[in-house]
């Protein structure tokens, strides 16, 4: 069945984007912070958050291929469509990094060449010690490599999926397994390094070996939340007749399980640094606890306790109402998680107002518009996938 992008949805998303544009313009003009850092921080928070959702969807798709899982075949087009935002997300990130290179913002303190100059007043011995890794040419090589390869795989899986509809047989299926395995190995490595380069380097002096996994679990859980919500929406509109309660249950289980993974890694990072109490490590948490105390701990409890208490029972994961309520709460929660990765290191204290809300809504509108547009490009149900029949009869 083909997806019809309703006029109402189009108008809604366009209004959201308009709000975003207004928020950007007014935010930029009223931004009193140095180098409009607040504005650029918001570009990065939203750009990364929505890019991460499509990246997480791409990862989840590759996971389905590599494990030859059958249960998600009927929602494969939903996962694929979500991953198609990755090109625009990557473009937004590149614009943001370019702005850093041209010193339009100072989110990345280490991009200033003065900190590497021993004669300068701004010389920073710690950052200069990291120069072998943290220098602009190498940063750009890495960034372009991550984005290029990820986008290539998103393009490849999409092309193969459409090809499979035409050709049939199992050839595409086996090719996908190999490609997915290669992607997963690449992603396992680069999801960590990308989070160091893009996010951890904001707090240049600070480091945490666990940071990559923490960011990755955030990426994954955001993607799962979005997939649950959008699947429920599409099923409610009647575009996914083959999806039954068991598929929703399985998606709900993922949302539940990865919330635990995220909470586990969030807490592990906090616990180890709290326990060892080494000055160069605790600074990260001191900033967050001094200026963002309620938000910081509140987000953790929200993202951990809501899924745990509400979604633990089997029936809750099969009830659409519970999934929507919990999903929406932790969706916002994980946006704030990204907010708390970026803002304390760039602005130092809480800035939250019309600009933050407006830009979040604007990017949400853009994201949904692109994803829904991708849904219209292909039939919502795959044809000729070897496990399609098995997936239709999923029963748990």
């Amino acid at each position, binding site marked *: 069945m083909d997806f019809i992008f309703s006029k109402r949805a189009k108008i809604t998303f366009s209004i959201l984007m308009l709000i975003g544009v207004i928020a950007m313009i007014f935010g930029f003009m009223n931004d009193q912070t140095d180098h409009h850092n607040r504005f650029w921080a918001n570009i990065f928070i939203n750009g990364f958050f929505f890019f991460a959702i499509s990246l997480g969807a791409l990862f989840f798709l590759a996971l389905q291929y590599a494990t030859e899982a059958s249960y998600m075949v009927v929602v494969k087009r939903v996962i694929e469509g979500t991953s198609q935002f990755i090109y625009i997300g990557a473009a937004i990130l590149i614009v943001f990094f370019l702005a850093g290179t041209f010193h339009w913002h100072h989110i990345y303190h280490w991009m200033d060449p003065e900190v590497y100059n021993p004669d300068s007043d701004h010389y920073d011995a710690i950052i200069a010690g990291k120069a072998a890794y943290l220098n602009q040419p190498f940063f750009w090589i890495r960034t372009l490599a991550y984005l290029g390869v990820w986008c290539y795989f998103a393009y490849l899986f999409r092309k193969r999926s459409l090809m499979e509809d035409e050709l049939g047989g199992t050839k595409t299926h086996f090719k996908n397994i190999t490609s997915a395995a290669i992607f997963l190995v690449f992603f396992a490595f680069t999801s960590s390094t990308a989070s160091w380069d893009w996010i951890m380097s904001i707090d240049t002096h600070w480091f945490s070996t666990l940071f990559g996994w923490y960011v990755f679990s955030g990426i994954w859980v955001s993607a799962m939340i979005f997939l649950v919500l959008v699947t429920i929406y599409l099923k409610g509109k009647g575009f996914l007749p083959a999806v039954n309660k068991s598929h929703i249950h399985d998606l709900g289980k993922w949302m539940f399980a990865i919330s635990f993974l995220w909470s586990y890694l969030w*807490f592990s990072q*906090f*616990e180890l640094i*709290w*326990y*060892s*109490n080494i000055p160069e490590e605790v600074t990260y948490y001191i900033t967050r606890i001094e200026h963002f105390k309620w938000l910081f701990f509140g987000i953790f409890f929200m993202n951990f306790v809501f899924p745990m208490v509400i979604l*633990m*029972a*089997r029936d809750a994961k099969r009830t659409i109402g519970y999934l929507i309520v919990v999903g929406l709460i932790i969706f916002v929660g994980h946006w704030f998680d990204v907010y708390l990765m970026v803002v304390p290191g760039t602005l130092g204290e809480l800035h939250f107002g019309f600009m933050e809300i407006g830009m979040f809504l604007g990017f949400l509108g853009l994201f949904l518009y692109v994803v829904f547009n991708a849904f219209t490009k292909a039939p919502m149900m795959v044809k000729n996938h070897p496990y399609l029949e098995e997936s239709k009869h999923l*029963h748990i």
Partner: protein
Amino acid sequence: MADKVIYATYDDDTVLLEGAKKLVAKGVHIRDVFSPFPIHGIDPVIGVKQTRLAICAFIYGLIGLSLALVGMYYFMIVDWPMNIGGKPNDFFYQNIPAFIPITFEFTVLLAAHGMALTYFLRNWTLPGVEARNPYPYTTDDKFVMEIHPADNHVTVDELSQMLNETGSILIEER
């Protein structure tokens, strides 16, 4: 005839499942099914209620959680406050991150052991207890359905007839 029991043996789980569906549709009450592995989808057919083991596990977990927290509070804050790495130990909340790993482990420990013990007790499959299995080959490759004619108000012959139609390879009366 009240203590008569009919055992129908099958050599395939799908045949048994389909047979059970037909029998239940005719109003026959199936007391139990013995099989070497869980048969997917048999529970609702023969009217086995959803397990309450999960609720037990949750309660055991809660007990573990509270016991661990109360224990830590007493040992580390009230009875003998210890200075470990200069961490403040005057109040419970100041030290709570240090207690989380133990709390987590104790919750899992109690939930897992409680669940296993409850399962064994409820099934009465404790060590040394004699197995209540009518046919040892149901632990290998056969599947057996247990029907009590007393539940059903039909004669043994009628029941045998019905079971034959479902593809049972052996029908025995004990």
